[in-house]
């Protein structure tokens, strides 16, 4: 491949694109950009046919790779550092710095005697957060941008072999990568002596087996090596001793997809977006009680309010915003007071949460914060690798207590034990999964302590979630006797004449909530039960 040839392909492909007209391929969750979005990572998604490398080239694809091959690896690292690009996988470690460490480690060690690759570049596509699908969108919609980003990163750090580690649950992403790789190899954009510059780099796909923890880089490396994925303590860091004991850089899909753009448009362009310490854009998967759920990409530093209300269209059903859960199962729940905080890596951590991979779940007044914490703990406990006791056993004890509390069996002592557990799990666990597992509990306890106390003291779930810990009452001064609730009630336990105040026969009510949802006039309220029901069978 030469630059002339690449330009020729670009010219031809532009022609095809022009003839076809800009289009947006139907792609499930990914919608055309909304006002306020800035698409860098998702720039090509839906715009090009991901199974045709020519269309990627038409969008300046692989020109960045050609460009950086005329720079030294050190220059590539410096440029990346200058752009301020930080890892999009959650921790926000500066990408250039990561490559620098790997390159440094590589320089201090002899090459493997048997001709094996001296260093590895791994693309982490093990997107495990429930509800997060930004990596999937990129891998499915623009696989070549990830491959090009990998090649640039590999050149910078000194890797000759790359792996894309992608979840088995993403068959389309796998298929598109499997299509993309031979295309890139055929054009000499992967393989030996790329652009005749003496740079060798090839990529293979490794498919994960469905473990959340394999998103942790050391566990991911174990998994690629063919073992059960389990994190191990660092140091040694993968940059020093990673895959097969060689210097390795593990970068997230979104991070890598940013890289070609940085070299096409310049570090200054990239650094021009975002906040002082968090540059560029970030994708978010908005879910929950928000009108426009889905995938968005916005500049760093945008506020949660802008995301939820301006882009997201506000809360469903005119309900009250209660909290936003960011950062996935290891992130935290932030209440309304954080709505105007600019979102970047530091501010989210300061608030007790995480950027994570960009999950954002909007919760309203009908979400019980204890139950939300229990839900995430159920996930984390299930996904704990089972290696260190604070995690595999500590999260189990946390889950048991939270389950007890949501079943009206909690005690005040349980709240103390929760605090004791969360403090120690976060300091004593081996990896970020264990350390972060407590965040949903810590943040809900910090911001919604009253809900916890109501659960254990009054056996009352004011959100109307925890079964047996509330009932519905019809407010006599609001009810206009429309009869909607009476018609909806499956057990016919609501009595009331037309235009007269209705009443629920509490003794026979099954607390299904159909009346509550049916009432258009907010005349049905969630109230504590006079005698809390306990020892109910497990719900769900």
């Amino acid at each position, binding site marked *: 491949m030469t630059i002339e040839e690449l330009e020729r392909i670009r010219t031809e492909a532009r022609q095809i694109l022009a003839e076809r007209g800009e289009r947006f391929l139907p792609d499930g969750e990914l919608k055309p950009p909304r006002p306020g979005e800035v698409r860098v990572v998702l720039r090509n998604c839906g715009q090009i046919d991901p199974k045709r490398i020519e269309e990627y080239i038409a969008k300046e694809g692989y020109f960045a790779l050609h460009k950086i091959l005329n720079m030294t690896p050190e220059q590539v690292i410096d440029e990346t550092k200058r752009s301020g690009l930080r890892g999009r996988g959650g921790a926000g470690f500066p990408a250039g710095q990561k490559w620098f460490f790997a390159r440094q480690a590589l320089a201090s060690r002899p090459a493997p005697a048997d001709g094996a690759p001296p260093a590895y570049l791994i693309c982490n596509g093990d997107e495990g957060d429930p509800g997060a699908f930004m990596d999937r969108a990129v891998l499915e919609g623009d696989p070549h941008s990830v491959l090009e980003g990998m090649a640039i990163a590999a050149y910078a750090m000194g890797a000759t072999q790359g792996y894309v580690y992608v979840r088995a649950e993403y068959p389309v992403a796998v298929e598109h990568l499997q299509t993309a790789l031979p295309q890139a190899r055929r054009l000499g954009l992967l393989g030996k002596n790329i652009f005749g510059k003496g740079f060798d780099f090839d990529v293979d796909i490794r498919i994960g087996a469905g*473990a959340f*923890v394999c998103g942790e880089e050391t566990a991911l490396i174990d998994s690629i090596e063919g073992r*059960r994925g*389990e994190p*191990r*303590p660092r*140091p*040694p860091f993968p940059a020093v001793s990673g895959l097969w004991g060689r210097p390795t850089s593990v970068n997230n899909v979104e991070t890598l997809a940013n890289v070609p753009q940085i070299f096409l448009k310049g570090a200054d362009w990239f650094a021009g977006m975002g906040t002082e310490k968090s540059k560029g854009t970030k994708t978010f998967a908005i879910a929950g009680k928000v009108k426009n759920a889905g995938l968005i990409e916005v500049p760093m530093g945008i506020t949660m309010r802008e995301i939820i209300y301006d882009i997201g269209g506000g809360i469903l059903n005119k309900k009250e915003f209660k909290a936003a859960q960011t950062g996935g199962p290891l992130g935290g729940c932030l209440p309304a007071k954080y709505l105007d905080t600019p979102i970047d890596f530091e501010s989210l951590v300061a608030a007790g949460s995480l950027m994570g991979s960009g999950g954002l779940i909007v919760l309203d007044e009908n979400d019980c914060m204890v139950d939300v914490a229990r839900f995430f703990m159920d996930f984390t*406990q*299930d*996904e*704990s*690798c*089972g*290696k*260190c*006791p*604070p995690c*595999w*056993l*500590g*999260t*189990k*004890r946390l889950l*048991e207590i939270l389950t007890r509390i949501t079943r009206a069996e909690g005690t005040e002592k349980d709240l103390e*034990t929760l605090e*004791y*557990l969360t403090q*120690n799990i*976060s*300091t*004593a*666990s*081996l990896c970020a999964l264990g*350390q972060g597992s407590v965040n949903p509990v810590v943040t809900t306890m910090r911001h919604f302590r009253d809900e916890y106390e109501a659960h254990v003291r009054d056996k009352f779930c004011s959100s109307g979630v925890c079964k047996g810990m509330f009932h519905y009452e019809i407010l006599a001064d609001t009810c206009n006797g429309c009869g909607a609730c009476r018609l909806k009630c499956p057990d016919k336990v609501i009595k009331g004449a037309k235009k007269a105040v209705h009443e629920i026969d509490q003794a026979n009510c099954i607390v299904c909530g159909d009346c509550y949802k049916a009432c258009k006039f907010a005349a049905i309220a969630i109230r504590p039960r006079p005698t809390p029901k306990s020892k109910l069978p497990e719900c769900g």
Partner: protein
Amino acid sequence: MTILAINGKKIEAAGGTILDVARANGIHIPTLCHHAALAPQGACRLCLVEVKGMRVLQPACTYPISEGMDVQTDSPKVRTARKFVLELLLSDHPKDCMTCETCGHCELQDLIYEYGVKETPFVGDRHLFPPDERDPFILRDMEKCIRCRRCIRACDEIQAVNALTMMNRGFRAKVATAFDTRMQDSNCIFCGQCVSVCPTGALTEKDSHGKGRDWQTTKVATTCPYCGVGCNFDLNVRDGKVVKVTSAWNAPANKGALCVKGRFGWQFLHHPDRLTTPLMKTSFWKEIKGTEGAPSPYKGFVETDWDTALDAAAGRLSAVRSADGPDALAILTSAKCTNEENYLMQKLARKEIGTNNIDHCARL
């Protein structure tokens, strides 16, 4: 040399982990998943220490020392974390030390004692696996398993067999063979390395159960009687009987490793078939004594005493030598016997009988 501070004390060390350096300097750091014969993995979190500048506690067993490092090994924060881990482990452990085979040399028991964990604050599910007695030699009582993975690592790192692995995740994570079969249906070779490294009573020598706790046995270091590798091990003896074989980790040839015969093949020692008295063929006895003789369990043989047997043997061997010359006699000595015995045997052949007709089964 690297200079660092542990508990405020300045220490110089060439390298290694915090645990290595602390132990070399007489500073106690508790461990549970660590084993000198295995690569450290930092899993159990008992060796957590405070490293100045680090946000979370760090495992001493994997953390390399560096210049100017400031480490606290016994601070309140560290002790709290360790006690917390022990409380968690205790919450999923049967409290049956009274009947446990491993009582007295259980590393969990020692740490629970050291950290004064009287009761666990955690109430919840406990694993209730019934003891797995389906396999020979190895009894797996998995409710005593603390998931330290020493067994898995020994099977991997020492034996390169990999019969054991973790299966499932979270609270359901457990040590198992592939597809959770009996060990004899896996690729297990019953070397018992897993048993030798287990810190609790989860893996024990089945044939030794009830025969003596660690403190009730005497350990005698010796050399294996089977193949030519020359493994060393300790015979555990109680009341004049061998009850168990345990690993000798400093053994030059085997470094603690053993095979199924070495570790578990000692029962023949006390087998009722052992010969306990000299025997003479009944016809031979009648020929020289003229009586019926004392019956033996072996058809055609009578029991006798040493003097009678040795006198008769010596007399008859001498007679053959006198009649047919020394080379009409032949001796088979034994590759199973000691050097000293082999030396004596060839001395007997060459000096007392006068023949070089001596050989043994080296060629077989």
